[in-house]
């Protein structure tokens, strides 16, 4: 279930849009924040409050990659392996994450600290390779630099 503050927030979100369905995307983000991922219960909660049928809500949610449909680690590492990043060694970085933190692409580290998502281009081709950790942006990555960055995320 949503916390009382989240419920209130959701009602405020709802009022910004002409109809309930239009409010689905921010509502699902809110649910993801509250539940950690979009579980069936999260969809039911959103559907219950917005009055949008749950099958429709799930259809919308599963369209977008940034909604997570399985439990995630405490921090989400999103690494780009598209052309520029790949040329500048992103795949080496994938191996590094695997060896150092036990992070498989699409998986979660055994300690639940990180989840790794492989991204398609985050618009940093000039400063590749690049990644996002939660909402923070990092570029010109090296193995050492990654190690330093991840140190800050517990």
């Amino acid at each position, binding site marked *: 279930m949503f916390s009382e503050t989240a419920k209130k927030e959701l009602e405020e979100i709802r009022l910004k849009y002409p109809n309930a369905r239009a409010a689905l995307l921010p509502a699902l983000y809110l649910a993801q924040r509250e539940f950690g991922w979009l579980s*069936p219960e999260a*969809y039911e909660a959103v559907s219950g409050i917005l*009055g949008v*049928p*749950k*099958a*429709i*809500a*799930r*259809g*919308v949610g*599963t*369209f977008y990659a940034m909604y997570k449909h399985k439990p995630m680690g405490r921090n989400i590492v999103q690494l780009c392996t598209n052309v520029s990043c790949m040329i500048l060694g992103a795949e080496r970085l994938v191996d590094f994450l695997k060896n150092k933190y036990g992070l498989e692409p699409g998986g979660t580290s055994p300690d639940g600290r990180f989840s790794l998502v492989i991204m398609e281009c985050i618009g940093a081709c000039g400063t590749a390779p690049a990644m996002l950790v939660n909402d923070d942006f990092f570029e010109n990555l090296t193995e050492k630099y990654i190690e330093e960055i991840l140190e800050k995320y517990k």
Partner: protein
Amino acid sequence: MIKVTINGKEIELEKAVTVLEAAKSAGIKIPTLCWHQQLEKYGGCRLCLVEVEKMPRLQTACTLMVTDGMVVRTETEAIANVRRSVLEFLLINHPLDCPYCDKAGECELQDLVEKYGARAGRFTEEKRKVPESLEDPVLVRNMERCVVCTRCVRMCEGVQGAAALGVISRGGHSHIEPFSGGKFECEYCGNCVSVCPVGAIMSRLHRHSYRPWQLVSETETICPYCGVGCTLVAQVRDDVIKRVVPRIGTPVNNGLLCSRGRFGYEFVGSKERLTSPLIRKNGVLEESTWEEAISLVAKKLGEIKAKHGSDSIAGIASPRCTNEDNYVFQKFMRVTIGTNNIDSTARTGYAGAQAFIENIFGQGSTANLIPGLANSDVVLVAGGDPTAVNPILGLQIRACARRAGSILTIGHVKGLRHYSPVELRPALFRETLALEGIVSALRNKKGLPGSNQILEAKLKDINTTPQEAAGACGVAEKDFAVFVDRLSGAATPAIVIGKEIVQSSGGNYKLFLLAAINYLVNGRIYLLSERANEQGLLDMGCAPDLLPGYRPLAYAEFRKRYETAWKTAIPERPGLSIFGMIDAAKQGSLKAMYVMGENPVYNLPNSRDVEAALQKVDFLVVQDIFLTETAKLADVVLPALSWSEKSGTFTNMERRIQRVRKAVSREGMEDWRIIAEVARNMASKFHYTGAEEVFAEISKVSPLYRDLAYEEIEKGQSIYPYKGEPLRSTVEEISVDKGAGVVAASRFYLRLERPLFHSGTLSRKAAALVNIYSGALARLSTADAASLGVKDGDVVRVSTKIGSLELPVAVDGAVEQSVVMLTNNFEGKGAFCLAEYAVDPVTGAPVIDCNAVMIEKVER
């Protein structure tokens, strides 16, 4: 006038339509996949691409509107190439398993590939593998075959309004799934099956047992379940109904069906069907011959009539049987037996409510067209969930909401909860106060129209304040005012009344108040009807005080008319109502009963008492297709033919007379024929060669069906009262009995659940419906379940003064507090064995809302 040229052919159009429709009107076929006549346009499949001069790219014909001077080509080599490519893409992941796909032969993808090619695809990658989903009892999903045209999603959301399906994921991973990913857990209307162009969503009934081209016959007939009277097509092979489908263009349901109509037909082939007559010998029902059974019935009834008089015999007719069956039955009771003791379960609500309303507004005033609901600007629902009792009618209410109409409900209506209803939820036994509040607020706001003095005299003294009414519903006065404002501002309001109101204490007064609302807002009333021919049975005169054609028995001139037609005297004294019969049986004054196609021991409240009463009757004849609870008590059981095995007519709640046609054959006799045989054995002249001849007599004697013949009915427009004018508008004195008023004194009260998936004796023999909803449940509100410390699946003992049942709990957010909802649909677990009743003094309906209930958890 718009002129367009399609394939060199000039077409003139009155108004702008899509290119697809314009082409269709000129007989030019453009291939489609995602387009469907019943659904919103989508433009997703790209198969209807056409060339339009002066437009740079190919255009989708299904979404492009024609403009004057437009030149279109639908079949060129370039178009064929594109269509071939589109199909090649669709086949990337399609398994091409046509040899064992049930859809083969009527698959739109198969037909298109056959026409445009792309048989050998150029993709060498492995096809996506998705196991077929068989988790659901009724529907099977095969996502390898799916072409993601989203017809099912649009049907489910935009037409059915269940919104149980969605497109999950995206791109090449897109697929259709119900929320759970496995079971549909939906309304099981199966309308997704109807619109699926490929074999992706299919029915599991008779799976892999036929090919579409092997279906040897198709019979258009009427659904045997509720009073809406949907047309359905029974498709038959080897004399077995393999499939029931709707047809686009039929008057009531127009291409849609509900779960009962589509999946409920299997009872016809049930192994439990009675095959030969049974006679009780030494206390045991034994198989016998027709000759022996019929002559025994005739002999015994003759003896009892001679010894105890005609009025010691009573008959119960059936809202499941055809007009012809019911007509012959009442004629048998009146002519051969010589009594007006004939009634039916229509007495449990529909008959009395209709008589009451039509006494105020004129006969035929409750006969309103079902599709008309969608065009109302306000629909007020009171006394039940129309989407469960009369599902196809419920869809029209949903359509009304979708067209920006307002839905107002008295109480919570589960099936309309997604349609922003304005609800008034009166506390237990305080509905009257809420309705009175609405009446007086409307009267004060709009004034009295002045056209019905008798009604106005009665409603002048109603002075419940908005404050009191709002208080009874636990809402603020301003919310109550919103409700009233919506009603008073309505231009074309409709009021839908269900049995819950009729069967509640003070039911007739509540009906009066609803009639008053209807009068003040100038609306139309719809009465929900649970049985296929409830209306027809009343038209046929299966009531103790009415002759065929609704002619009151009390008037000598009407009696005379039928006496002339039937060449016999008709007793003047009205007969016993169904509840009067039960009382008379208990007292011992009723000696014999003839029950046709009804199961009073189960379908009447206080069913154990009814059972005891019928046991006291000296001679009980039951004519049915199953050995029902009632048949088990009988002295003679006569097996009848079911709805699909005979010919006849049903009259729906709109008073539309429709043809029931024989789809499969079976040895035996129709109900009317059995009765005619008994009558003949009692020296009455009942000579009919077929149902049509019975109908010919009906159309001769009944003013409602005057001059109608099967031929005319088959055109589908036989509906009365003609042109919406009431047949008779006798506003007689309106008698109303408010009753004493009930104060909630018990922690819980019994309420009846009328589920979408069941309707008693027939549906519980339909395997698919039983698979969907398989056993009786005790439904409790979330709060009550918590306070009792029970959760889903826990067993509780539900007891009233007269009995108790142990049932699993279902926690249901839609249930009101302080009530427990039980169904009367499962063998040995019927809610009616717990429900005492009193008869409403005006409508004659049983009042069953005062049954106090104790609930205790059964520890296992």
